[in-house]
Structure formats: structure tokens, C-alpha cells
């Protein structure tokens, strides 16, 4: 690994000032992606500012019955929080279906939001990759792209977003609270994740030195009936080929309210707004679920190896909706 300097921030202000004032520096939280990518030569900071001593680990209910998750809360702690399990099961399930217990013990929630793609051309450190070296081209478009995205892609990048919990948070309209050199901001999570467009190297609207301090989930009673369904090449410890976060409120056989998001298929955690619009007010039937799923995947663009994700995502959406509505185990 290339040489690094290290400092431990003792206050949030100190961390922001240090990273904000030095373009060679980066925050260090759980390190599960960051240390990996530095060792691979993909990212090249000279200074790491360790933020793990900062008081940003609380998981608490907000006065309006929402949820506030400190940016340094570990994935394990959020997943095992009795309050999260009861009121936001989709968040707990998404966390527990991601990574391994060791990684979940290390990885922070703020860090998870900044997780980088698993695209092998990004990670190999040498292939042309617009995300790693802007302007060099995308090796995946005409390369091995079985794991890549079918929604939200551009000519410059088709890398799939790897997060599981990000999918649940996007479904629930979470808000990302930050502090930075220009003060405090609250960013709706769907705006926090940027589409690649012509600048895939820019993944978030954060300025230098801007630090995620908390993730807030608004009060969402329908989330008590929610689930995360994930399909992958192995039974455990693998990134999603397709995943679905779903929460549905059914009244008198009709969909009164619904939240749906997809993982594994988008260049960002993918809020399924087309499907939500198709479902809302309509019958809670498998036929309606299938029509809504088809509407969501209608703009999908397949490449050489990943066309299978489109029907797989449709079926996964139907199954997730069916399970959350009917409590159907299969």
C-alpha cells in the first residue's frame, strides 16, 4: 500500500476543517471499502482523518416517530436495534442480507452511503474507467457486464450500485444530514445518489470536507409491513443481482400507499416510482403487481451479459409485493 499519514479527529469541526483544507485527505470511518480501494490503488489519498472517535453513533427515535441513525452507527447495531426491527424491518433485513458479520461490525452507515461500485474494471486500477479516470472510457459497456446496471445507465458508465441498505433507505425517503465548510445541509437520499450521466466520477453532491453526520428516516407507519428480498449468486455474503425493498399499505383490497426500490439493477439505489404510480389506488393483485413491475423495467437497457436482470427484476418485484401483502413465505 502507498504511504499514508494519519490523524484522529476529536471534534466534528476539526474533522471538517482538516479534510476541507487538504485536497489530498479523506475521512476514515469503518474502512471496509476505503482501505480496500487504497490498497488496490483505486483511490489515492495521502492523509486519512480518522473520525471514529466522534459522537455520531446514536440510533434514536425522533419526536415525530421517525428514526435518526448516527453516521458512525455500525451496520450491526442498526440491524439489531429492536426499534428498527419492529418499525422498519426492511432496513434491518437489508443490512443483515449484506456483507458478513465481521464487515457489518466494522462498516458505518455514513460510509455505506459512500460505498463504491464493485465493477471489476473500476476496481482493477488499470482498465479504462470513467469513474476512476474521467475521460478514459467505459470498459464494461463492451466488456464483461453480467453484474452491471440496466437502469440509470449512460454511455459513460453502467456500473451497478452495490448497497443493500441504500435501497431500503431510498424506498423510505430518508434524508442525509451533513455538516461541511459551508454549514449544515439536509439532502433527500434520492438526490444524494447521482446518476452517472457524463460525469460518473461524481457520485454524491458533497463538497470537500462535507461530512455525513446522520441519516433520518421520516415516520412511515406502512414500513412496519415491509421487507427486503435479495437474489444473488451465492446463498450468503454476496452482492445482489436483483433486490427489492417493499412496503405496502393495503385497504379493502386496494393499494393505499406503497414504497418500492430496487438494488443490483440501477446505477444508484433505484426508487421504483413508475411502479408505485401504477400500483397506487389499484387492486392488490398479482396481475397488477406484474403490470407495475413491467412499467418500471420498461426503460431498462440491457448489455451483452445482463439482459437476464430485466425479467428477474420484474419477477422479484411481484414476489416481494406478494410476500409483503399476503405474508406469503414463498
Amino acid at each position, binding site marked *: 500500500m502507498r504511504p*499514508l499519514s494519519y*490523524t484522529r479527529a476529536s471534534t466534528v469541526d476539526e474533522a471538517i476543517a482538516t479534510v476541507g483544507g487538504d485536497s489530498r485527505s479523506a475521512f476514515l470511518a469503518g474502512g471496509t471499502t476505503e482501505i480496500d480501494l487504497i*490498497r488496490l490503488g483505486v483511490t489515492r489519498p495521502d492523509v486519512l482523518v480518522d473520525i471514529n472517535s466522534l459522537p455520531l453513533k446514536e440510533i434514536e427515535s425522533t419526536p415525530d416517530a421517525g428514526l435518526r441513525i448516527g453516521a458512525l452507527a455500525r451496520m450491526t447495531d442498526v440491524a439489531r436495534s429492536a426499534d428498527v426491527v419492529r418499525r422498519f424491518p426492511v432496513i434491518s433485513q437489508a443490512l443483515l442480507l449484506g456483507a*458478513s*458479520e*465481521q464487515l457489518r*461490525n466494522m462498516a458505518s452507515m455514513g460510509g455505506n452511503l459512500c460505498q463504491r461500485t464493485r465493477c471489476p474494471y473500476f476496481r482493477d486500477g488499470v482498465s479504462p474507467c470513467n469513474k476512476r479516470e474521467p475521460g478514459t472510457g467505459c470498459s464494461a459497456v463492451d466488456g464483461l457486464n453480467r453484474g452491471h446496471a440496466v437502469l440509470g445507465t449512460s454511455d459513460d458508465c453502467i456500473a451497478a450500485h452495490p448497497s443493500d441498505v441504500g435501497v431500503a433507505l431510498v424506498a423510505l425517503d430518508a434524508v442525509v444530514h451533513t455538516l461541511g465548510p459551508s454549514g449544515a445541509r439536509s439532502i433527500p437520499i434520492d438526490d444524494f445518489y447521482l446518476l452517472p450521466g457524463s460525469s460518473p466520477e461524481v457520485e454524491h453532491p458533497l463538497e470537500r470536507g462535507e461530512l455525513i453526520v446522520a441519516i433520518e428516516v421520516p415516520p412511515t407507519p406502512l414500513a412496519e409491513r415491509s421487507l427486503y428480498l435479495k437474489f444473488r449468486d451465492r446463498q450468503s455474503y454476496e452482492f445482489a443481482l436483483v433486490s427489492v425493498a417493499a412496503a405496502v399499505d393495503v385497504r379493502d383490497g386496494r393499494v393505499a400507499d406503497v414504497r418500492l426500490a430496487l438494488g443490483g439493477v440501477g446505477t444508484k439505489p433505484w426508487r421504483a416510482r413508475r411502479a408505485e404510480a401504477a400500483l397506487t389506488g389499484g387492486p392488490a393483485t398479482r396481475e397488477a403487481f406484474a403490470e407495475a413491475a413491467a412499467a418500471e423495467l420498461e426503460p431498462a437497457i440491457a448489455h451483452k451479459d445482463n439482459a437476464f436482470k430485466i425479467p428477474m427484476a420484474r419477477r422479484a418485484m411481484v414476489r416481494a409485493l406478494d410476500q409483503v401483502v399476503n405474508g406469503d413465505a414463498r
Partner: protein
Amino acid sequence: MIGPARAPVSMRVNGEIHEIELEPRVSLLDALRDHLSLTGSKKGCDQGTCGACTVWVDDRRVLACLTLAVACEGHEISTIEGLATGGDLHPVQSAFIERDAFQCGYCTSGQIMSAVALLKEGNAATDEEIAEHMSGNLCRCAAYPHIRAAIRDVRDADTTTSGRA
């Protein structure tokens, strides 16, 4: 700010304090193996995929290859070398021998550090749970059935570490 040159670092490993000099880029795994001669923790992938380097930091199982040693100052590190009590193996170590839960042995220290943690976490009630919560430890010899048997044995022998708290 320290580094990139070597700087003094104080590490507490298996209850013993070590004052050593390290570059900040050194991983906890390399510090244990190359600076403290604690070679029980293994380097398999060095990218957080295999689990062979599993140790505990403050009693939580983590991956030593993705942890910077310098970031562990002020924390308690536990490795496989600290698991036995004097000459008595930890029950999970004994169960791995009894159940023949390894072939080449390279992943074994990570498997055992993970398994002991799993039993404390209380998520080992069924084989499915054991498989799920041990999935971060790969065994290329595929000794998984015997590893699960060893974990079951310890779970069932000691009600204080049973599958459900």
C-alpha cells in the same frame, strides 16, 4: 498528524501492551504478523473477502486486513493466540479438533475467532443460522459441515452460550 514515516504506536493485544513503531499504512494484520510475531491470524485475500484474518477489536469480530493498526490505539485486540487459557484449549478449539473441522488449516484461526464470537452473539440456534453468520469465513477445503458440527457441539454443551440468548 503522524506518518507517512514510522511513528510510535501503542497496541494492546491479548491483554498485553506493546510499544512499537509503525507506518500508518500498516494494517492490523501486518502489525500482528510482522511486528508482533503473532502469526496465527492469516493473510488470505488481503481485501476483506475471505475472513482468514478475523480477530476481535473490543470483543467484536472484525477483519484485520481492512483495519489500520494505528487506528486500534486505545482498543483491545484479541487474537487466536489469546484464546486458550494456559495449556487448556478453548472449547471451540477442542471441538474443531474433535470434529476434524479443517483440512489445510489456513482458514482455521479465522473460523475459530468467528465461531467463538458467533456463540456469544447468540445467533447459532440452527444450522441455517450458523451457515449465515459464518459466511464471512471461507474454507476452500470445504470443511463447512464439520465446522458447523463443532459449533453445534459447543453450543449444546454450554447452555450459557446457547443459540438464543
